[in-house]
């Protein structure tokens, strides 16, 4: 085989694909970071106006809550857990509970990618405080009870008709392949606002 004639092509190809992949991954990370700014602005507008505001005109999702994990900077949660929504921010699972909906209490399920927004989910300790702002601007407090690894192929998402918060991300963290069936769940109990007042 005449490797000599192929080498320049091969190297150009490698570099091209490498750049493309690098660009792709950089774009993913940049999208995840930058979109949060746009989304948090639309969340502010939404809180002020009371109407659903799309972060950009062609978006197929809209912010529904704001999530603050322990000491980290707040993340704006989007409606739905489709791939498009999760690329920009944590997503609130459709059909799971609305935060602070006392008429129809249900576990609130929020999912995000383990390499972008929920990168540090593994660092949450039991007892850590998570705060969630609902669409009326009220903040709800949750306290982490524990974490668990489950197999998404065989387990159901444990959604119960009690107010609680379930954070979901892929497991293991810092892995190379994206298709792992394992999920890392963090469950946080709702801290009754009445109880907080009494303290």
């Amino acid at each position: 085989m005449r490797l000599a004639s192929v080498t320049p092509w091969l190297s150009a190809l490698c570099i091209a694909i490498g750049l493309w992949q690098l660009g792709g991954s950089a774009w993913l990370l940049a999208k995840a970071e930058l979109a949060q700014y746009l989304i948090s602005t639309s969340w502010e507008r939404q809180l002020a106006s009371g109407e659903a505001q799309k972060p950009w005109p062609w978006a197929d999702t809209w912010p529904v809550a704001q999530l603050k994990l322990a000491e980290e900077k707040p993340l704006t949660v989007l409606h739905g857990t489709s791939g498009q929504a999760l690329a920009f921010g944590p997503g609130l699972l459709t059909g799971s509970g609305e935060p602070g909906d006392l008429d129809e209490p249900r576990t609130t399920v929020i999912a995000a990618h383990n390499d972008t927004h929920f990168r540090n989910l593994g660092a949450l300790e039991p007892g850590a405080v998570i705060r969630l702002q609902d669409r009326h601007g009220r903040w709800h407090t949750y306290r982490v009870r524990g974490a668990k690894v489950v197999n998404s192929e065989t387990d159901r998402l444990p959604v119960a008709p009690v107010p609680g918060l379930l954070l979901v991300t892929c497991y293991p963290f810092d892995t190379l392949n994206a298709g792992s069936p394992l999920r890392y769940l963090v469950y946080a109990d709702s801290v009754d606002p009445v109880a907080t007042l009494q303290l």
Partner: protein
Amino acid sequence: MNRPFFHPPRIHRDLLILPTDEYYRRRYRKSRGGSWLLLIVTAVAVLVAAVGARAQSGESVDTAAFESVSINESGSGDLLFQGSEPGRYIPAIHLGTEVAIRVRGLVAEVVLEQQFRNTSNDWQEAVYVLPLPENAAVNGMEIVIGERRIVGKVREREEARRVYKKAREEGKRAALLEQQRPNLFTSRVANIAPGEQVSVEVRYLQTLRFDRGQFSLRLPSTLTPRYMPGTPAASSQTVALNAHGWSIPTSEVPDADQISPVMMQQAELTGREGSHQMDIRIDLGMGLPLADIHSPYHEVSFRRGEDHRYQVGLKNGAVPMDRDFALFWRPQVASMPSAALFAEQSTIPAEPDAQYLQLLLLPPQENLAARKLPREVVYVVDTSGSMGGNSIRQAKESLLLALSRLSQMDRFNIIEFNSSHRSFFPRPAVATADNIQRARSWVESLRANGGTEMAPALKEALSQQLDHRVGELVRQVVFITDGAVGNERALFEIIRQRLGETRLFTVGIGSAPNSFFMAKAAQYGRGSFVQIGDLSEVQGRMGALFEKLESPLVTDLQIQWPQGMKVESYPKRLPDLYRGEPVRLVARVENGALGGAASGEVVISGRLAGKRFSRSLSLSQLSVDDSGKGVGSLWAREKIAALRDEQRERGPLSDPEAADPLSEQILGLALGYQLASPYTSFVAVEETPVRPSSEPLKSSPVPNAVARGQVMQSFTYPSTATGVYGQALLASVLLVLGGLLRLVRQRPLSAGQLAGCRPWWRKGRTRVERALRRWLRAVTPDLRRRAGDGPGGVSR
């Protein structure tokens, strides 16, 4: 990995550099370059493997850490994670289904055999939520193991549970079939040995549906996950049998855990050695020449036999169990009967004189140009999460078609509901072109998501119509839904109490709608129902519904039995009939009065568009069949349904301790006629234990397939990794590789030009090379050293 990497672009011949003087030098260089390439590739492979190994080891360590922080306090958290032992149950049981249906007269006798094969290494109990037609009279259950058959018996529900539990604990093979809803059963099989296959045969009877000259038969194969309204309730079951449902019992649906099976995508199930496939064989022997035998959702083929019998089967063998099977056929026009009567002698020893009668009669089908009354229609459309996917498209299409049928005289409104409801107009508005146009664009924008809070929407729909316009308008509510709710009872109660002069029609949407809800809601709503399972059916089925909505009704139906004949017939009050619907009833006649010379005639009369009509049918020439127990079972099933309706209307007893006369009556009937009912279950137990007591028994739910075209909702995990690290690593590997290749190519040129002096990059390369070697030496284990260390136990 990336595909182009393995398929380098083909280079055109003209572009190739042909061998010149340089050829041999290049070739020599290349071989060295090749060795370089080899080194790099090896290094990259080692690097990737090392990173992978780190990730692996990290995983196991972390899992161990989880155990220590896992949720082990009691409370709702335990409930939350109930039954989630990873990797335990899904692949344990393989399910196959064979259905043999025999149609005789107006009855289909169905034998449904389900094979549960244990594919795990443990003894298993299979728990399966079995959907059946809403009017099924379940009259038999057997366990089949190879050639052996263990016949199941009807027992009182609690007793059947006890018998089953005891057999399960003792290691005997046992099966239990419990009714949860008229169209939803739970089937359990205990003590299936590893690798063994145990079949459960369920037998039931079903009346054929007849509408607009067409007979039909429906066989559900899966269900749409039900929404469970209400607040969670404490479990109060007296005999706790393990339920694998993901729903927690609520105040509205106390048996939510029993009717919410694990759902899995059909593709995934088929991937597991073709689980969840059903084969169907139908023997159509109505004694009539038939035309137009077809199934809307499956491909069927049929063969004509002797005596107008037709053998119908699936064209391509077994089909996935992810949608209802339906079969339609019509008698040839010349032989279309206007009435059918079937009589049967009782086979119950205690009452040998009883006879049963089944009757179907077509009212006059004149094409009456009736005065068209203006209508006021409220369309209620379900936009809950379970409607996601194809269902919402079918619903929208149906609704748009319905809007296009309205005339200027009519008034209309649309209500959509999921967790809450929204009404398009506050009150029904005149169907002007402008209003309809606005409604159309609103309908187009509807999306499926959220819960199914049907009750408030239903109340709203039934209270929107103003009282002072009674008589001027025909009031109709058209309810478009998949009926995926667990609180059917409460909804029927709302319909019954608030209906007034309104008529409620249901349109069942999707591949596996809740037929029980559709039929019963229409019965209470004094309307009719259609089912749409495919987008292509919308036009035809909605057309049929509109014909019903717009045509005059057959009202005031009366039935007159011959003098002195003691008859108990169901339904007690004959409902009004819409266009194309027949009068149908089942009756029990005392003292063997049928088929004799003195039997006389039964007269059915009614009113159609202001004109009275009557039909009489002779009972004396009837041939009474004394072999079957088909009509008898159907009569008992109808009576149970009527008693259940009565019970529902009466509401719960004020004293919960007191014996309920109605439930006693149902129990007596079900035991007498050997039927499954809310109070009776089938249980079959083998005599000898098979499972050694040293072997534990595991309980596994057999999943139901997600109905075709439905978005798998109900809380599956989203995928939450982008693979950005993998992508970045691949990118850097490729960049390094490309760069090195480039260097390899350029090296001799620069070496030739700058002979004598070592170029800077060459020094750098040697350094990199050395570092790499050192690193590799450190990373790769030295076998010699270990071998020397081991046996002697010498440590340095």
